[in-house]
């Protein structure tokens, strides 16, 4: 099962992990990304995420399908939030369910690594004295 979500409302870790449960899946791995309160020693006040939504959904779906092809996993859920997020809030959740845990760990790590490279979502860090589009410049 593949479940892809891109939304403005807060994400639920329990709901995401529950999606990949299965009586034949013995190992589930959940990755939760949270908004950190600093970046390179500078205090972050909040973040703003925007997406090219139709393509972001397609790219997340591609990652999920590639993970299903590469590893013996049963289910994968990729949820991303957009809009304004405060410190500690959750921009991304990835849950994977598999019969064996090694596949679940590897597929989950692959999915978040790839998401950060290919999915058209952009993050702006808001500081007390300005704002920066993350990773835009070398």
């Amino acid at each position: 099962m593949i479940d892809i979500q891109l939304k403005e409302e807060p994400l639920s870790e329990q709901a995401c992990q529950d999606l990949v449960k299965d009586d034949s899946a013995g190992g589930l791995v959940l990755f939760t990304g949270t908004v950190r309160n600093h970046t390179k020693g500078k205090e972050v006040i909040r973040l703003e995420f925007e997406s090219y939504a139709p393509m972001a959904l397609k790219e997340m779906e591609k990652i999920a399908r590639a993970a299903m092809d590469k590893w013996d996993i049963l289910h994968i859920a990729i949820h991303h939030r957009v809009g304004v997020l405060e410190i500690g809030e959750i921009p991304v959740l990835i849950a994977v369910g598999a019969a064996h845990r090694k596949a679940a760990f590897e597929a989950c790590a692959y999915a978040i690594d790839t998401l950060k490279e290919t999915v058209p979502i952009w993050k702006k860090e808001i500081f007390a004295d300005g704002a920066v589009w993350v990773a835009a410049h070398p």
Partner: protein
Amino acid sequence: MKIQVVAFGIARDILQGTTQEIALGSSSKISDLKDVLMKEYPAFSELRSLRFAVNEEYQDDDFELKETDEVVIIPPVSGG
């Protein structure tokens, strides 16, 4: 021909707008569009990377553009 490009993130800041019409020669490729953008908006050359999506798929420099294509400038992504 004229291509309507859509911009997100820092690309929107550089273009100073979400969309921009760019004039190109007939049978132009993404590489031609990139050249025009870099020349008119030098800030694009300072980015870590600059990719383009046509009709919601990444395409390479040698992809031939049509006026009806949905062309989106993809500056370095930073989701997650």
